[in-house]
């Protein structure tokens, strides 16, 4: 056993960290919150070049193969630098689509044509209704076939998308269980899982109504299951299960990164801030609060790594709840120890403070994770 990152993995994490540190991610996050996505997309391009979005895409579609451990390193960096955008959702979509193109025709029937002229983000309002009239059981070749070769059918379309995810060319978002689709207005592809047993996958035509999140860099949409029915069958539900697992894992890693950023910034602040003639960080009450934050993060990270190694649903649930709560512990301590300045929007700290709680709940609430761990969920 060697439960340690190897040199290459540590290098990868360091490279992403320095890339993002140099990229002024706080400005990108603030612009994203204002609806200006240019800086954020530029950040995505750089991350894609570093290989982050290829980590959930099989090699057959220009991905790096599925590398969950490396993915957690990438997402920890994304969290640490408050990178905006539907990154987790793009990963989940990539996992879902690659599961679908790998599933047999008994498990998944794809839309059988008419998607070839379809631009990204252009599902069109004129697609089939919930009857799925155009749906056949054509299985558009295995993962070895060229992306998009099966002209115009759902499988070909899915393969094309996978390549675009890997290259960072396309962002996706995904609505599961009647929840929210993050940043559906920016995403190039909006997927909606629907049907009584979750066996339908729709390519939504419209992002649907928007709601604000506590994190202004996250915008919540409720796209309807309308547009084109991309695929249907028990394989969709099975693929969504896998997608959910990856979504939870990536969110957990992101939460660890958010917690680290909050801890680092707060440590920096209490070393500088002086009251009663000394740095407030020399007070035991302050030290102990921050020691507890480090404790929470240091015991969360191994759970995230172990979950990446096994991809076991219980391991992922453990990682998700622990990382999410560690980030929230960090946020509460950061807010308290910064004093009043921490309670302002203008301090960049707010970018992370406001992210911790949404990440704790997205892709698996603590309650649902704990239910799974004790075997009642």
């Amino acid at each position, binding site marked *: *056993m060697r*439960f340690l990152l190897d040199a290459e993995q540590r290098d990868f994490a360091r490279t992403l960290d320095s890339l993002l540190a140099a990229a002024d991610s706080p400005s990108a996050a603030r612009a994203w919150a204002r609806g200006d996505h240019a800086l954020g997309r530029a950040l995505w391009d750089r991350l894609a070049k570093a290989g982050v979005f290829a980590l959930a895409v099989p090699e057959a579609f220009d991905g790096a193969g599925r590398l969950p451990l490396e993915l957690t390193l990438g997402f920890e960096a994304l969290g640490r630098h408050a990178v905006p955008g539907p990154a987790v959702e793009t990963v989940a979509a990539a996992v879902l689509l690659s599961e679908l193109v790998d599933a047999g025709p008994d498990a998944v029937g794809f839309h059988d044509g008419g998607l070839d002229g379809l631009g990204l983000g252009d599902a069109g309002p004129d697609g089939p209704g919930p009857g799925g009239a155009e749906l056949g059981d054509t299985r558009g070749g295995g993962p070895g076939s060229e992306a998009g070769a099966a002209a115009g059918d759902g499988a070909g379309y899915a393969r094309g998308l996978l390549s675009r995810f890997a290259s960072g060319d396309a962002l996706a978002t995904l609505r599961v269980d009647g929840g929210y689709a993050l940043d559906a207005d920016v995403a190039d592809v909006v997927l909606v899982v629907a049907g009584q047993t979750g066996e339908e996958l729709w390519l939504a035509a419209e992002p649907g109504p928007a709601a604000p999140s506590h994190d202004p860099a996250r915008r919540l949409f409720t796209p309807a299951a309308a547009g084109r029915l991309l695929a249907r069958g028990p394989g969709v539900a099975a693929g969504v299960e896998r997608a959910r697992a990856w979504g939870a894992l990536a969110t957990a890693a992101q939460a660890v990164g958010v917690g680290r950023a909050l801890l680092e910034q707060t440590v920096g602040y209490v070393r500088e801030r002086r009251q009663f003639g000394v740095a407030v*960080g020399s007070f035991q009450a302050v030290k102990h609060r921050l020691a507890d934050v*480090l404790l929470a993060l240091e015991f969360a990270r191994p759970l995230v790594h172990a979950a990446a190694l096994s991809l076991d649903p219980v391991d992922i649930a453990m990682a998700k709840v622990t990382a999410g709560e560690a980030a929230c512990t960090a946020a509460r301590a950061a807010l308290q120890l910064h004093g009043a300045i921490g309670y302002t929007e203008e301090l960049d700290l707010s970018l992370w403070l406001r992210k911790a709680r949404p990440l704790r709940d997205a892709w698996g609430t603590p309650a649902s994770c704990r239910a799974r761990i004790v075997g009642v969920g």
Partner: protein
Amino acid sequence: MDLTHDAETEAFRGEARAWLAAHVPSAPLPSLETREGFAAHRAWEAELAADRWSVVSWPEPYGGRGADIMRWLAFEEEYYAAGAPGRVSQNGINLLAPTLFDHGTQEQRARVLPPMARGEVIWAQAWSEPESGSDLASLRSRAVRTNGGWLLSGQKTWSSRAAFADRAFGLFRSEPGLPRPHLGLTYLMFDLRAPGVTVRPIGRLDGKPAFAELFLDEVFVPDEDVIGAPGEGWRVAMSTAGNERGLTLRSPGRFLASARRLAALWGSTGRDPAVGDRVADALIGARAYQLFTYAGASRFAAGATIGAESSLNKVFWSEYDIALHETALDLLGPEAERADGPWAEGWVFSLAGPVYAGTNEIQRDIIAERLLGLPKGRR
């Protein structure tokens, strides 16, 4: 990165499991903190030692199996999963033995370790004094030079196991008046039945004599029982704090087994949804602690030293242990009040965790100052 033990470790685990299945007493032994229970646990140590299972990580000449830290972890997982008794020898095995391996002489190791491994000599620790708890270096018990050895005088307290143990080890001031309190201390071993030693057992919270006060009046200790150089005691005592001892003070196997017992209790008492989240947290905590330890063990195996991170470890397990036992008591309902219940002794014991082995306040100071780089201040 992987979480797979190698074949040797798995074979070792299998051997341990088979031995434990054949030898672990079917009924729990009486409490370790009673005269009767102490004797029963001492006999269990001898049974372990007879088949070389008492000190698996020690080299073979001293009664061990030369197990590396991964095999030690696997052994501990099996040990506690099998419901085997608590270890009456643990102060000696976990605290004194590593010091002897690092700083003792060949003669000391040959003389002290084998009887420790067999449970023939049970060791107590003698660190704290009435005026020196967290500020251990302020200790005042003296070691005064005499012909062929030292005369120990003073008072030690909170000496775990000393009510029934045979010998003790601790720090004494051999050179008073030096500019810093950490200087001029000497690490010595002494006999609890030597002339001049008075042992006064102290009842812990539940009344059991789990520790004792030691009154020392010119107790003679021969030179051969000094560990390291005289005056170097602080360095000798602290040097082993930074190695694998930080990982081995409480093994993850113990908490994995307790968490499984807790989940079973929850299952057999109607799966109260109000307690379900805390049962989940117990399962998560045991796994997190196991993984944190595996990560530390992997770093250690790769040549790193374990430093202040052992403070994270200590705070985590001590607070985890209380939460786990309190959850169990909640599941027992009115039965939880019974002091002879199956979780009662573990609960009482867990309450001491945040205090001993360096209070959690001191540990959090260490975490903040050495791991986060915050400035030192008034304690």
